[in-house]
């Protein structure tokens, strides 16, 4: 929090709660960005895997379950990968939605806080 030049703007409990909420949202935003990155990577990997699968001519594929690679027939692997892709896509959608909501809420709070405190407060990413 930037230290202002001795201005007299009073900080009310409501202001403090807004500042706290902004902090929480900012943290959540960073977490979401990381989770989205991981989700996107997983999605790409699954895409690559299913592409490789189409190219291969073996009927038995070593599919990782837990720590071991089980011998699974190609068809089953295909459907498993499709299922995993669906789950990851849904998760990614949910994360993006949450991120949009968080960004919107942060913009609202910025307006309110800058409106009251102007230069005495710094809400930007360093």
């Amino acid at each position, binding site marked *: 929090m930037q*230290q202002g*030049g*001795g201005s007299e703007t009073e900080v009310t409990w409501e202001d*403090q709660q807004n500042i706290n909420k902004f902090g929480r949202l900012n943290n959540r935003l960073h977490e979401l960005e990381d989770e989205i990155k991981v989700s996107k990577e997983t999605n790409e990997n699954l895409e690559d895997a299913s592409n490789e699968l189409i190219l291969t001519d073996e009927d038995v594929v070593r599919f990782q379950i837990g720590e*071991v*690679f089980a011998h699974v027939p190609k068809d089953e692997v295909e459907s498993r990968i499709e299922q995993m892709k669906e789950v990851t896509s849904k998760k990614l959608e949910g994360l993006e939605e949450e991120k949009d909501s968080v960004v919107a809420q942060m913009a609202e709070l910025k307006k309110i806080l800058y409106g009251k405190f102007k230069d005495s407060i710094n809400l930007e990413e360093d």
Partner: protein
Amino acid sequence: MASSSSSTPHGATERRGIPGAQFVEDVQTYLNQSGLDVNSALAFLQERLQQYKLVEMKLLAQQRDLQAKIPDIEKCVDVVATLQAKKDTGEALIADFEVSEGIYSRARIEDSDSVCLWLGANVMLEYSCEEATALLQKNLENAKASLEVLVADLQFLRDQVTITQVTIARVYNWDVHQRRLRQVATSSADDS
């Protein structure tokens, strides 16, 4: 674990051993009530901030552990489910597993009604597939619940940190303002 809260005016509740930061309505009143001068007050608040940071690091480490544990348990649930599914077809499951780093071997897993679960502390117990699934699910739920509580703790902690940082800034600004007023007062006294 119930969260204990002893509420006093505005936000000085404590949560599971983490002291709440008292919100300061008015800096002058706060300094009078605590009987501290500006520098002592700032020192006290800075120390509080350090304590909060320590607790935050501890909680973050616990969070990382839990976040690693949960996918592990999910993988185990997956394996047991696969074994159960294979049991119904009557075929053996052939799997490649890691013997040592980079070295894999093939295993043929026959039908089996039971699995062994590693419980930690060099203890491994045999369970039926159903019991194993139940136990693993319970562990998964517990881990997820603990994670939720931990996340709430961290949010509470971060709020207290923010309140303390804002209070430090306000006390400092108040002091600067007071000095300015005194300067103006003494310079106008000199002029007259």
